[in-house]
């Protein structure tokens, strides 16, 4: 499989009044053609900004540094402005979390999709319109002629998310960044939207970076998963391996936290402690304050990301049981 995206040692910090806040530290990941990479973590762990940094969508006080950021052999760090505008949307498209607020309320829905086409393809308005309606049908919207001329407040959340997907997919991007695309939707719609994204992934061979805090959704969608905690990548593996044999205590905790109807009315599991603020990151392992197995070593030294079996990386001194250990 071709490597589409290769990011090495990505760090992101924010300049604030209280000084430099490190939000993401030394995150590396690769995205292969046709693959779906999941990024999991609690809110504020840096999963969204990791993805946004790829096409430079961070606020101006962000400082991004990395050893490598290659997209299709092109260095994303030293790209000029016009090329960046070209990549945005055409090669790397984003679906945001809240479809209700991510579309312009003063523009017709169809116009917004058409705008995307007109920005990246040389087509007449009529062609663009036809393509828009064709795409809207493809993502499962009906009555597209009428919908084309609707405003966002006239549509439901699920419909708007379909519009967003239509917009993101219309130029057939190589990478689709889906930033918690189903968080704001109810469960039945969620299943439909996920199905739709999978289908588009198969048909158009679009690679997807799927950001979520829901391991259930990740299990459905992704081929590979990266677990993030406080800006660190704590574990990375193929989905099946990670779900069966989580090696990092945090991943284990996340898996335990998924409510299981079979267990009956037992108390739901929660990882003890709270998420730290970025400004109070511990010196050692980021998870040491909430980890049952933490030792003195964990509190003072930062564990390195080590490969415990093929393509299974974990940042922990004492990884949990693993068949090969």
């Amino acid at each position: 499989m071709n490597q589409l995206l290769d990011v090495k040692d990505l760090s992101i910090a924010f300049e604030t009044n209280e000084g430099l806040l490190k939000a993401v530290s030394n995150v590396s990941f690769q995205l292969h053609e046709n693959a779906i990479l999941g990024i999991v973590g609690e809110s504020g762990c840096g999963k969204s900004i990791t993805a946004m940094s790829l096409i430079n969508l961070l606020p101006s006080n962000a400082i991004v540094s990395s050893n490598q950021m290659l997209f299709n052999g092109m260095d994303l760090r030293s790209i000029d402005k016009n090329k960046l505008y070209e990549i945005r949307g055409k090669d790397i498209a984003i679906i945001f979390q809240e479809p209700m607020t991510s579309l312009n309320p003063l523009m017709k829905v169809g116009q917004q999709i058409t705008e995307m086409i007109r920005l990246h393809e040389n087509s007449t308005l009529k062609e663009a319109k036809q393509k828009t309606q064709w795409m809207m049908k493809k993502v499962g919207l009906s009555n597209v002629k009428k919908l084309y001329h609707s405003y966002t407040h006239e549509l439901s959340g699920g419909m708007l998310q379909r519009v967003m997907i239509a917009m993101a997919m219309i130029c057939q991007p190589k990478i689709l960044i889906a930033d918690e695309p189903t968080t704001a939707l109810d469960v039945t719609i969620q299943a439909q939207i996920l199905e739709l994204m999978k289908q588009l992934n198969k048909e158009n061979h679009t690679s997807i970076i799927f950001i979520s805090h829901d391991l259930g959704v990740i299990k459905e969608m992704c081929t590979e998963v990266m677990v993030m905690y406080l800006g660190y990548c704590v574990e990375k593996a193929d989905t099946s391996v990670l779900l069966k044999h989580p090696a990092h205590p945090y991943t284990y905790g996340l898996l335990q936290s998924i409510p299981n109807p079979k267990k009956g009315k037992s108390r739901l599991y929660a990882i003890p402690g709270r998420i730290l603020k970025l400004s109070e990151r511990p010196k050692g392992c980021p998870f040491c304050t909430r980890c049952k197995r933490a030792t003195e070593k964990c509190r003072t030294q930062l564990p390195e990301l080590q490969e415990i079996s093929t393509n299974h990386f974990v940042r922990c001194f004492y990884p949990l049981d693993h068949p090969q250990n």
Partner: protein
Amino acid sequence: MKKRKYSFNFYIGIVIVAFLLGIVIVSFFYTPYTVTQMNIGKKFLKPCWEHLLGTDHFGRDILSRIMMGSQTAFQVGLISIGIGLFFGILIGSIAGYYGGIVDEILMRIMDAVIAFPGLLFALMFVAVLGQGIVNTMIALGIMSIPQFARITRSGFLQVKPLKYIDMAKSIGVSNFRIMMVHILPNVISPLIVACSMGFASAVLAEAGLSYLGLGVQPPNPSWGRMLSESQMYLLKAPTYSIVPGIFITLSVLGFNLLGDGISAIRDPRK
């Protein structure tokens, strides 16, 4: 579609403005007499069938002069608001969109402009660069830039952090297009209100300057000038001064009520 409810003020405002606009349009094609045509034998006539609003101290028809004067008033209003709107939107959107030091510099300049009392600045401007309608319009235009800039900037500050602007960026829309196509429409409605109010104050300011003899130059008719010329004959021919006074009041009132009515429509609390 739900039917919109317009306020009482809006209706009165629109009737007055429509009436004045009607006068302007008619004056392009027809006035009862030529405005500069003097007739010393017929000076200070009371309103009669021949001269509906009477005549002035040169025997000129007041109705005709009022009609031509409305052209002047609207011309000054439109052009000065146009200048203010253009530069105000430009400055306000750049300041609001880019923020930081750019914002700081531009808005402090605007503060400096606001610090001058409007009419005083216009007086100074006209006194230095010469009397006449063009300089009057430029001066009034410059004075109205800050209010438009501030309204535009505040709208930009509100809309810029919203998700759909990020979305627009993420699909590769350029900064300029984001400013003009995605953010500006959100700011249009407060700007329309400001235009209507600003129009009223421009008409008033033009009348004031012309009254002082600095605005429109004779023999071109202007409501303010008519007012100043007529004051010497206040007792002899009261209609001569009352009529332009009424028209100035009417246009200020009309545009203010209209602005008020529009702002009431877009106020979701009502």
